[in-house]
Structures are given as C-alpha cells and as structure tokens.
C-alpha cells in the first residue's frame, strides 16, 4: 500500500513538474509579441473612388465605399505566414501593391477589381518585413524594406537593378520631387537618391528615428523625427531646423498652401506658416497622442488620435465636428470621394466611413 502511495506521489510530482514547465513555456510564448501568427500592429489603408483597401492581419480586404460591404479578400484563404499592415498603394496602371510581414516577406501585386494576383509570383527578395509603402516613379517601383534596402522593381515585380543599401530600417514610403527620391530611415538619416544613377549622396542625420515620410515642398522636403524637430532639407543636403515639437514626431507632416500641419506623441497638433516660420495657432491638443498624419481636404483638417477620436478642424483650429470612433487610431485617415475612412486598431470594427459632416455612413467588420 505504501509502495503504491509513494509511486502515486512520485508520479504526481512529475506531473506537477511537467505542468509547471509547460506553463512557463506557454507564458513565454504568450509574451512573444513578434510571433508571425499574431496581428501585432495597426492596419494599413488605401482607397480609390469605389473601394477601400484595408491591410489587416492575414488579409487585404477590398470594401465598397458606398455600402461598406466586403468585395474581396486577399488571399482568399488565411495563410498564417502572412501579415499585412503596411499601407497598400494603387498604381496608375491599375495595380494594388502590398508588402507583408511573414516568413517570405512577400510584396504582392493585386488586381483591385478582382483581388487576384497580377504578378506571376510575389517578390520575395527582401530579408525584412514591409512596413513602408513603395513609391512608383518613372515606371519603376521603389520599395523600402526594414532590412535597410531600397528594392527597385519593374511593374511586373522583377528586380531591375541591385537594391540600394541605405542601412537603417526603412519604415516609410519614399517621396519624390520629380528629380530626386527622398527616403527616411529609423537610423535617424534621410537619404537623397538620384534615380537616374541609383546613387545616394551622404545621408543627413536628423538626430532621431524617422518613421514617417517627408512632405515635398518647394525646393526641398519637410521631415519630422524623434528628435522632435521639423527640418527643411534641400536636394543638395543643406538642412535647417524650422521648429521643435514638445514630443517625438511620428507621422508625416502635411503641406497645404504654405502651411505645414504636423503632430506629436504628446497629442499636440501644430500649424506652421512656412513663409513666416510662425505657428498659426497656439497648441491644439485633442484627446490623445497623435501618430497618424493630418489629412487636409479643402478647408478641413482631419486628425485622428490614439484615444480613438476623429476630429475635423477649420484652418483656425476650430473643431467642426468630433467623433469617438473607438479603439486606437494610428492609421492615416484616407479620403474616398467625399467619404472619410478611418481604420481603428483594437476596436469593435476594422473600418469606419464618415461623410463631410461627421455622420457615420457604415462600419466594416471582416467575417471570419
């Protein structure tokens, strides 16, 4: 009897030990924010006049902007090795380009009408995840990757030249002034590339990580960074600090009629008059940190906050309307026709549409 009891206790101890170790393993697994099967950051969003394209987790969803109904999803079947969250972009020749995180780091081209692949095969030549959107310039795709390379592809997804090694992770879409391509990197540097030669001059250190794209202006670009500065950079590399925010600047500044709108993680929205170098208004602070870029449409400035609010302001910072969307708003708001689209993170729905008066038209939640 004692033998059996002892053996039973011994087995229980072993079972307890295994349970303890398994618990530890599960706990640690649960803590691994970077696992491929989890949606671990906010969605990407793009739109044309008829459809919105939401990059969220395992799929890109095409959503009808009138009805808010799903038109297609890509891929049709869930692939746990793919996570989309970079903003997709539409090209003038009718492609929707989207980069993903996942084992193969795929950059895909989708037909916006059908949701089918355009290319014979996705581009899988990058080592890192796609966070920033590509730039289409002179019939070529300039695709920035978090592996620090700028990949240059033709419109069929074939590499046309060696990628340009820029160093730090590239999280933002390159921009062009028609002559040069400007690429920001997390390693604090702005690169100015001559697309004709594929060469880059000495990069410019802006003193902090740059997760947002520059805004193209007359004679140069405006860049915000984690240094909290807004700098103006000329194509020849000259740069000057125009102003300093109260916290890190994440989103791209938006230039509209000589006014530069930008925001910081303190939740302050700024309006800088470029000509005079003066702020147009005293600090405007909605209800939470601002990661997304402001969107300017006519006389309205749309801004979204981490607290889940979307605000429409006039040029004097007067609130025209304000709506609580829910969740956290980090994704840049996008306009489709006269419909404002916002994609909250961790909300009851994945996409919401508002008309110009702030009335909610519809919300979209993907069906499982």
């Amino acid at each position: 009897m004692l033998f059996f009891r002892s053996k039973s206790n011994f087995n229980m101890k072993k079972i307890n030990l295994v349970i303890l170790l398994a618990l530890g393993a599960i706990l640690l697994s649960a803590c691994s924010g970077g696992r491929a099967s989890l949606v671990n950051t906010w969605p990407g969003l793009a739109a044309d006049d008829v459809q919105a394209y939401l990059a969220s987790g395992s799929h890109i969803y095409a959503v009808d902007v009138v009805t808010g109904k799903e038109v297609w999803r890509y891929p049709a079947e869930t692939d746990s090795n793919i996570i989309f969250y970079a903003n997709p972009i539409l090209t003038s020749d009718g492609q929707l380009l989207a980069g993903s995180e996942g084992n193969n780091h795929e950059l895909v081209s989708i037909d916006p009408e059908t949701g089918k692949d355009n290319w014979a095969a996705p581009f899988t030549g990058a080592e890192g995840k796609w966070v920033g959107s590509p730039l289409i310039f002179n019939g070529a795709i300039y695709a920035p990757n978090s592996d620090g390379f700028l990949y240059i592809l033709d419109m069929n997804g074939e590499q046309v030249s060696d990628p340009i090694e820029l160093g730090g992770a590239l999280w933002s879409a390159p921009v062009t002034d028609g002559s040069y391509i400007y690429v920001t990197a997390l390693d604090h540097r702005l690169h100015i590339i001559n697309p004709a030669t594929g060469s880059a001059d000495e990069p410019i250190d802006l003193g902090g990580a740059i997760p947002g794209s520059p805004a193209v202006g007359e004679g140069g670009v405006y860049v915000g960074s984690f240094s909290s500065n807004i700098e103006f950079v000329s194509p020849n590399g000259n740069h000057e600090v125009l102003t300093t925010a109260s916290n890190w600047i994440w989103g791209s500044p938006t230039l509209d009629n000589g006014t530069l709108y930008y925001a910081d993680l303190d939740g302050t929205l700024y309006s800088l008059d470029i000509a005079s170098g003066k702020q147009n208004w005293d600090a405007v602070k909605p209800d939470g940190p601002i990661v997304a870029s402001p969107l300017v449409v006519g006389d309205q400035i749309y801004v979204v906050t981490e607290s889940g609010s979307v605000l429409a302001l006039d040029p004097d910072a007067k609130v025209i309307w304000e709506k609580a969307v829910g969740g956290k708003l980090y994704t840049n708001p996008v306009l489709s026709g006269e419909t404002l689209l916002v994609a909250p993170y961790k909300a009851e729905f994945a996409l919401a549409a508002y008309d110009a008066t702030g009335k909610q038209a519809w919300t979209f939640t993907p069906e499982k």
Partner: protein
Amino acid sequence: MWETFIIQPMVNLLLWIYDILGHGPQMFGLAIILFTIVIRGITWPLNASQVKGAQAMQELQNDKEWQDIQKKYAKDREKLAQEQMRIYKDRGINPFASCLPTLIQFPIIIGLYQSIIRAMAATPLDMLNLARTVYPFQNVANIIPLNSTFLWMNLGRPEGIPLPFDVSFLPNGFPLLAIVVALTTYVQTKLTMPTTPPNPNDQAASQTAAMSSSMAIYMPLMLGWFALTFASGISVYFITSNLLGIVQYAVTGRANWRNLLPGGNKSTPTKK
C-alpha cells in the same frame, strides 16, 4: 502592475546600460550581459539562501534523528509530517527556502524576454510602446532604434548559423546558442544536486531527489527550446545567468562537480 514594476524598470535599465556603453553594434548584447549580472547581483542573497537551504536539507538526510523518525513513523504519515516540521523548526530550516529563488526566476525571465522584445521595437506598435515605456528623465531619442547586432546574431530573432544545406526542422540553421543554453543549464542543475542518494525510507527525500533528476532533464530541454524558438537576446541572458550561477556555486564551495561525471552521485550514504 506588471508593466510598472517589471517591464518599465527592466527596459529603462537595459536602455541606460546600452546608452552608457556607447549604443553601437555589439552593445545591446553587452547590455544584456551586464543587465544579467546586475539582476544576478540583486538576487544573489536569494540564490545564496537557496543553496544554503538545499545544503541544509541534504545534510538533514544524513542526520540520525531524521533517519530515525523515517523508520519510526513509516506507517503514520501524519505523525511523520509533524515530526519533520518539528525538526525543521528546531534546526531553523525553511523547507521552501530552496524554491523561492526558482519561483523568482520565472517572472525575471518572462520580464526580460518582454523587455528585450520591447526594446528591439520590431513593429510600429512595439516602437510606440517603447516610447511609452521610457522614463521621462531618459533621453533616448538619440539611441532608438537599438542596434540588435551581437557577434553573428540579430538579438531580436532566433539564433542559427546558416548551413550549406536545408534542414526543415532547423529553419534558422545550426542552433549553436540553444545547445550552449541546454548544456550550461544541465551543468548548473547537476551541480546543485545532492551527491548522496536519499535514504530509501525517506519518502520526501526520495521524491525531492526524483524531482531534481527530472529537473536536470526537463530544464535544459525547455530552456534549449526557448533559445531555439525565441529572440536570441533571451539566450544571451540564459547563458550568462547559468555561468554566473555556476560561478556562485563554485565560489561558495557548494558545487558538486562529481555529479558531472558518469556515476558521480552513486557514493554510499554516510551516517552521523
């Protein structure tokens, strides 16, 4: 609570060490090593009490009075438990003293793993969370993003040395670090095991010994699996921590080196 008392201090300590090291290539790996030394330093008294507690428990197995009650109350478990508790009390032994540091290790490992992932900021959301985690007095804008290169590794990704051929179950290549983690864990666990087998009449001691034997197998396998699967920064922590543990046992003269030899713990029990 977890965020405030575990993650925030750990991330800030890591960033502070990384900053004072000069925040270049290799420095995040060195920061993890220094961080581990600091954590080991803080938990040194706990580890010392674990070693002391384990030693006291081991010595108790050879104690005449202890052995006598095992025989006397072999069929009366309740009375045996009462007598054991009396002896623990008389000798000032806390039977749980050897468990506490192990329990404390778990939140530290999990916290460190989360801190490394947080500090590496691989996605925009991670980066945003990192911005929130940094204490206001730390000026880290100039050091973010961290340089994750250490030796041949990217500390934010699982380690592996590329192989000239594909092995389906080793997608990252040859897992050198995982093997070193498993080996050092095995050595550390074996060094702490008693050199003398338990008294067969002592059920509790037999169970403890069985548990120790299991630990010597499961712990290296589990930590090796962690090293194989998760960011290699955590492996750097495991190896450093294991080596420091081995040093601690050696310095305090409580390392049972014979356990590392085949049949090294088969010596005859001695009676006092």
